[in-house]
């Protein structure tokens, strides 16, 4: 919506809250070809010291189900068909297990123009960071995404 103010660095872009669910852990483990039984077998998870089935390391990507990516892309003024993800970064304080109640706040932490020259248009580079906090208020996982919007040749 044009009335919306443009997001600037430091702004909160969206918030998400979800519970780590056994079915989703299994689905995501299968989709990423994980073989460790701690993601699928409660006995194996318990034997490894987990209080419940362990989530795979990039499990919080499932927050995509609870986010409106298209709205966020619009809020940032990006053209979806020119957007690619350049890199991702994870920092782990503890592994996630089934039953964890997570809240993630996504912030815009960088917005710059990069590259260009020798006939190539510059790209816009957006850096987004989400810290997922558990029910006790402790940070469990940090996820940083660098999104690139390819420029339009002039």
């Amino acid at each position, binding site marked *: 919506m044009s009335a919306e103010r443009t997001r600037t660095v430091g702004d909160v872009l969206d918030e998400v809250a979800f519970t780590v669910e056994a079915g989703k852990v299994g689905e995501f483990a*299968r989709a990423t070809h994980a073989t*460790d039984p701690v993601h699928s077998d409660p006995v194996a998870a318990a034997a490894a*010291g987990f*209080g419940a089935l362990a989530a795979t390391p990039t499990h919080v990507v499932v927050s995509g189900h609870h986010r409106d990516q298209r709205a966020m892309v619009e809020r940032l003024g990006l053209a979806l*068909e*020119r957007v690619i*993800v350049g*890199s991702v970064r994870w920092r*782990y304080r503890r592994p996630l297990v089934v039953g964890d109640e997570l809240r993630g706040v996504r912030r815009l932490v960088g917005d710059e123009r990069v590259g260009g020259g020798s006939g190539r248009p510059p790209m816009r580079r957006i850096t987004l960071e989400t810290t997922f906090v558990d029910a006790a208020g402790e940070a469990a996982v940090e996820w940083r995404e660098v999104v690139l919007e390819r420029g339009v040749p002039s």
Partner: protein
Amino acid sequence: MSVREPVAVATGTAVPEREVGPITPTDIVRFAGAGGDFNPLHHDPAFARRAGFDGVIAMGQMQAGMLASWLTDWCGVEYLRELDVRFRAPVRPGAVLRFTGEATGLGDLDGEPVAALALRAAVGEDEVVRASAVIAVNDGSRAGPVGRS
């Protein structure tokens, strides 16, 4: 309660390789459903062509997730501390991803022995993902099993 030991790692220790593929459109759709990424670039060939690709490409998070799961199947998800992934080239249906990596050094993170790893995914000779990771390791100084939670 028993906990798993971290892996014993020296500089140069290789992560056991894994191959995944050939990647099919179904693999990409399965990941889209698992993660909730419904960007049409990853399932709608007409949209992908308008975006300048010759067909759908996988979302980077798919190969990043495969790399992460490959790594923690070996080192234990409870021992992964940091993971940085750069996407270097699109992954298309038909690609066979080959994951390789090795320890590049040992160190200490918040008082815990760790190893730095250099990791990659390649399709044939082409590197499509480059990554680095920090994992907790058993450097021989641990008195017994150590777990964080």
